């Protein structure tokens, strides 16, 4: 059967943490879109996936029926505190989004462009003469964290590595250790927020979070505020890395596209949108069904857990022509990589800015680069997806051993 050539039947017995999904990522997604509007998993308490654009959109927008309040992870680890605004519904969700949105609006993030450009160049300086880099470690894992820390919350950049590590382990690590790994990040950010609460206010995002919002006229709890800064940090450092890496991988292996963007940087923003669609860092996030409902021909019952397969919906031929093709010149890019409905990624404008500036600077400094021979990029996939290594070579200090 078409759906069971991946070592298990992905229609009835899917596992998002299965290494086979990581390995055959696009093949599995495309098979799901084509063959199974709804797929099911037997892992743990079990869960389902919605795979087509229209169904994902309907469920994402209908937060009353598809609630975020019980978390976005299937088989959520015991003892994991909820992350707000992500794991909440209106009105609690709206209280926070209304307060936070202005800090992430297109015009607000534009202010960070110069700093992000300087950081991109700093990181490139460290390897430009070497003729080779491991792009994830040397660049993509660092830039989003710097952009978020320096411009938005002011956490010391030296503590970035520890936070990235804790959040990675909390996402892809052994299930039974995820809560503890995430806990390390929460503890750190809680201490940071408490220190800032006791300092004179600066009128910035951190002050806003430390001051909290009101729900129904009552101030929210301190834990809720720590949870918000954690959610923002998680979103800020755990996602954009993958799109950056995907973009560089594509340009390293498609010289014509690379030359186009070097020659015409004005085409970069459109290419960025296509890279976000094609390299989705957020694969699928969950909702809990609050009342019996039929969608995609399947009857869901109250209490069922459903993943909105954003990555699959961005490859639905009913929403987009030739979805399996990465086309940087595509005219109408419709995708769900930033989610759909009230939880639409709050960082989407910042992520787009980072990606545009990074491509502008990398292509300006290093217009000619390729994948290092005998290396292949490595990936890691669960509800999120990331690349763990990407070796690039380029002229400059290129040595004999780096032949292309």
């Amino acid at each position, binding site marked *: 059967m078409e759906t069971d050539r991946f070592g298990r039947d992905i229609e009835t017995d899917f596992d998002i943490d299965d290494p086979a999904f990581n390995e055959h990522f696009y093949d599995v997604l495309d098979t799901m879109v084509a063959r199974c509007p709804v797929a099911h998993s037997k892992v743990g308490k079990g869960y389902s996936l919605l795979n087509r654009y229209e169904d994902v*959109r309907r469920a994402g*927008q209908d937060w009353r029926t598809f609630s975020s309040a019980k978390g976005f992870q299937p088989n959520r680890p015991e003892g994991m505190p909820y992350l707000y605004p992500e794991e909440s519904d209106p009105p609690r969700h709206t209280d926070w989004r209304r307060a936070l*949105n*202005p800090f*992430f*609006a*297109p*015009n607000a993030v534009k202010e960070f462009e110069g700093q992000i450009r300087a950081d991109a160049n700093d990181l490139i300086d460290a390897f430009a003469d070497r003729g080779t880099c491991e792009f994830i470690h040397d660049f993509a894992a660092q830039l989003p964290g710097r952009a978020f820390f320096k411009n938005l919350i002011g956490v010391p950049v030296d503590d970035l590595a520890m936070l990235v590590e804790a959040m990675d382990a909390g996402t892809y690590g052994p299930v039974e250790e995820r809560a503890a790994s995430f806990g390390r990040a929460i503890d750190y950010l809680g201490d940071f927020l408490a220190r800032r609460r006791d300092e004179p206010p600066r009128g910035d995002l951190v002050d806003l979070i430390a001051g909290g919002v009101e729900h129904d006229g009552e101030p929210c709890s301190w834990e809720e505020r720590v949870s918000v800064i954690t959610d923002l940090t998680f979103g800020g450092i755990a996602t954009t890395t993958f799109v950056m890496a995907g973009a560089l991988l594509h340009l390293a292996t498609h010289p014509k596209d690379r030359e186009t963007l070097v020659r015409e940087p004005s085409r970069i*923003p459109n290419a960025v*949108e296509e890279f976000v669609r094609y390299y989705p860092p957020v694969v699928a996030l969950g909702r809990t069904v609050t009342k019996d409902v039929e969608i995609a021909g399947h009857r869901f019952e109250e209490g069922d857990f459903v993943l909105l397969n954003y990555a699959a919906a961005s490859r639905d031929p009913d929403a987009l022509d030739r979805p399996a093709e990465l086309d940087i010149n595509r*005219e*109408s*890019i*419709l*995708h*769900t990589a*930033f989610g*759909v*409905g*009230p939880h*639409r990624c709050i960082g*989407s*404008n910042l992520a787009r800015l980072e990606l545009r500036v990074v491509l502008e600077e990398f292509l300006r400094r290093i217009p000619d680069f390729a994948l290092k021979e005998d290396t292949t990029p490595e990936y890691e996939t669960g509800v999120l997806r990331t690349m763990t290594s990407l070796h690039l070579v380029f002229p400059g200090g290129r040595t004999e051993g780096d032949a292309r």
Partner: protein
Amino acid sequence: MKYTVDGSLCTGHGRCYTVAPTVYAPDDEGYNLRRGDSVEVSPGQDGDARRGARVCPERAIELAE
């Protein structure tokens, strides 16, 4: 041609005004400026209006002749 932005669906993806800046514009927070309104499209800009509506992930923009 007229476009109408459903204020309960627009979540500020910003795709409409990025793809078709001649037709759509953002408000201060990045939502479509004309949320909830029905707006006449200027002559000659029907194509842009359609392109912007097509890329809205929320299907928040409705077009009518």
